[in-house]
C-alpha cells in the first residue's frame, strides 16, 4: 500500500535568526503506510508535539520535505493547506478542545460543516452514527460541559473521524484520563482503525498502550531512534 505520510530530513527550529534559536527536530525521516496504527513515544520535550504539528500542517518545517497522501506540502499555499487539513487529517488532542457553545452532535458535524459550508441531513446522520459508535447515542444534544472527561474525549474522537480522514493524529488522547477510561479510548481508536481503515499516529507516554500498537516510533532529543523506524 502507498504511504499516507512521508517525512524526509525534516528539521524544525524556533526563533530562527535570533540568539535564542533552538533546533527542536534534527532531521526526521519517517514513512507511515495507509491504515497503519502507530505510537509515537519519547520523553517530555523530545519534540513529539512539534512533529505532530508539522504533520498536521499547523506549522511549516524549517527544512526537509513532508508529503501527505502523496502531496508535497511545500507546494501548497494557505488555502491548499487548509483544505488538506480539513479533508485528509483528523485531530485528537490531550485537552479535548470541543466547542463549548455546541452540542456533542454539532461538534461532530463541525468538520463536515466547515468543508461543505452548510449543514445537511447526511452530515447529521453520519455524526449520529459516529457518536453511537463511541457509545454516546444518549448524549447527542448535551453540551461538552455536561459530559465527563472521558465522554468529551469520545466526542473529540468521533469528530476527528467525521470526514473519514486517511490519517488521524492524536496527541496524548488519554493524557488526562484514568487508566480504565484510557483503555476504553484506546480500544475505540483501534476499532476505528480496523473499521474505517484510517492510519493513526498517536503520541503517548503510556508504555502499556504503546505496546498495543502495530508500531512504536521513538523520539529522543529531536531524533528518531533508528531501531524504531
Amino acid at each position, binding site marked *: 500500500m502507498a504511504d499516507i505520510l512521508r517525512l524526509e530530513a525534516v528539521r524544525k527550529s524556533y526563533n530562527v535568526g535570533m540568539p535564542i534559536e533552538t533546533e527542536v527536530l534534527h532531521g526526521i525521516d519517517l514513512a507511515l503506510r495507509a491504515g497503519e496504527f502507530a505510537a509515537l513515544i519519547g520523553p517530555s520535550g523530545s519534540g513529539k508535539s512539534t512533529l505532530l*504539528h508539522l504533520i498536521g500542517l*499547523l506549522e511549516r518545517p524549517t527544512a526537509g520535505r513532508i508529503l501527505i497522501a502523496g502531496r508535497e506540502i511545500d507546494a501548497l499555499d494557505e488555502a491548499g493547506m*487548509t483544505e488538506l487539513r480539513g479533508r485528509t487529517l483528523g485531530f485528537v488532542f490531550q485537552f479535548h478542545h470541543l466547542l463549548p*457553545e*455546541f452540542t456533542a452532535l454539532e461538534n461532530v458535524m463541525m468538520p463536515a460543516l*466547515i468543508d461543505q459550508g452548510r449543514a445537511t441531513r447526511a452530515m447529521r446522520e453520519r455524526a449520529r452514527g459516529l457518536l453511537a459508535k463511541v457509545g454516546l447515542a444518549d448524549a447527542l444534544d448535551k453540551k461538552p460541559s455536561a459530559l465527563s472527561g472521558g465522554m468529551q474525549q469520545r466526542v473529540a474522537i468521533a469528530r476527528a473521524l467525521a470526514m473519514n480522514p486517511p490519517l488521524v493524529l492524536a496527541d496524548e488522547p488519554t493524557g488526562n484520563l484514568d487508566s480504565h477510561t484510557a483503555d476504553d479510548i484506546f480500544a475505540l481508536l483501534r476499532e476505528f482503525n480496523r473499521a474505517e481503515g484510517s492510519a493513526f499516529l498517536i503520541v503517548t507516554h503510556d508504555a502499556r498502550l504503546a505496546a498495543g500498537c502495530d508500531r512504536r516510533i521513538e523520539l529522543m532529543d529531536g531524533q528518531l531512534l533508528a531501531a524504531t523506524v
Partner: protein
Amino acid sequence: MPFEWILALRFLREGRMQTALIMAGTTVGVAVIIFITALMNGLQASLATRTLSTQAHVSVRAPDDAPTPVLERAGATSVVAHIEPRVQRLRSIDQWQRVTRELVALPHVVDVSPITTGSGFAFRGNASKSIALMGVIPERYDRIVKVSDKLTAGQFRVGPGEAVIGIELARDLGAAVGDRIRILSSENRDDVFRLTGLFDLGVKDLNRRWVIMPLRSAQSLLDLSGGVTHIDLTVDDIFAAEDVATRIVSQTGLTAESWMAINTQLLTAFKNQNMTTRTVRVFMLLIVALGIASVLVVSVVQKQREIGILRAMGASPRRIMRVFLIQGGIVGGSGALLGSGLATLMVYGASFALLQDDGSALISGRIEASYYLTAAAVAVLTGLLAAVAPARRAAKMDPVEAIRYG
C-alpha cells in the same frame, strides 16, 4: 445556514451577558440618534411653521430697476463711480395671470395668491397712521396666511369697500367692526372702507400696519390698474422653498425670495442646531462602535482555543474573520431594530410631554421611515467596521499557540 452564520449566531447566543450588554448599548445609541434627529426636525418644523403662519413661503415680485451707470470706462483711466440706487417705483408683474398659472404648475407649489401692496395712511377722526395696503383675493390669500383663523372680531369678508385691519391699528384709530376708515395711498388717491373684521397675527408690526382690502381697491388706490405687485405662494416642503425660489427666478426672470432668504437668523439658528445634532450623532456612533469592538475583542481572546481547533479542522483564516464580522453586523442590525422601536416610543412620549404655549404638541409623534432606514444602514455599517479589528485579530491567531497552551 452557512457555517459562518451558524457560528456567529451561536457565539452571540452563548455569550449571554456580553451580548445583552452590547445590544443594549447599541439599542440606546441608535434610539438616541433617531430621537434627537426627530426632535430637532420636529422643533425646527414647528418653529418654521409658526414663523410662516404670517408669511408666504416664497414671494415673487417684478425685478428691481437696475440703475444704469452714467460713466463709461475710458482707456487706461479707471473711474470710480458711486452709483446711487434708484428709488424704486411700485412695479407690477407683467402678465401676472399667466405667471400665476405657470407657478401653480411648478413642483412643490401648493397655493398661489396674487397681491397688490403699497404704503399709505389710514385716517379716522383726527387719528392718522402709516399703513401697508394689502390688496388680496380673500379666498386665495386665506390659504397663504390664515387670516380667518386669526380674527378677534367680525369675519374675514372683504367685498368692495370693505377691509379688515389688525387689532393694534384698530386701537390706534379707535375703530371697531362696522366703523369706516379713510385710506390715502402713496399715489395720493383715497377711498373709504367699512371694517368687517379685526385680526391678530401674533406680530405687533403687522397688527399695526396691515389693512387687508380687495385686490381691485388696492389696484386703483396705488394706480396699478389690473396689476399685482407680488405673487405669494406656499410649498409642500418648507425646506424646499429656497430651491423653488431659485427655480422661479431662472424660469420667469422675476425676483423670488423664499422665507429662508428673509428669515436668515432663523435659518442660521437651524444650521447651528443641525451641527449640534450631527456632532451628537457622530459621538453616539463612535461610542456604539467602541462598545461593539471592545466586546468582540474580549470574545476573540476568550475563544482563542476554539479558533485554533476550527483552524485545525480546516476553517480558513478568512472564514474565521467573517464569523466575527457577522457578529458585529448582527449586533449593529439588531441594535438598529430595537433602537428604532425604543425611539418610536420616546418620540411618541415626547409628543405628549413637550407642549407649546397653546397646549398643542411641539413635535408630531411620528418618525419618517427614512430615519429608520438610515439608522439601520449606519448601525449595521458601524457594527461591521467595529468588528474589523477583532476579526483580523482572530484570523491572525496562531492555531498551534492555541492548541499547545490550551
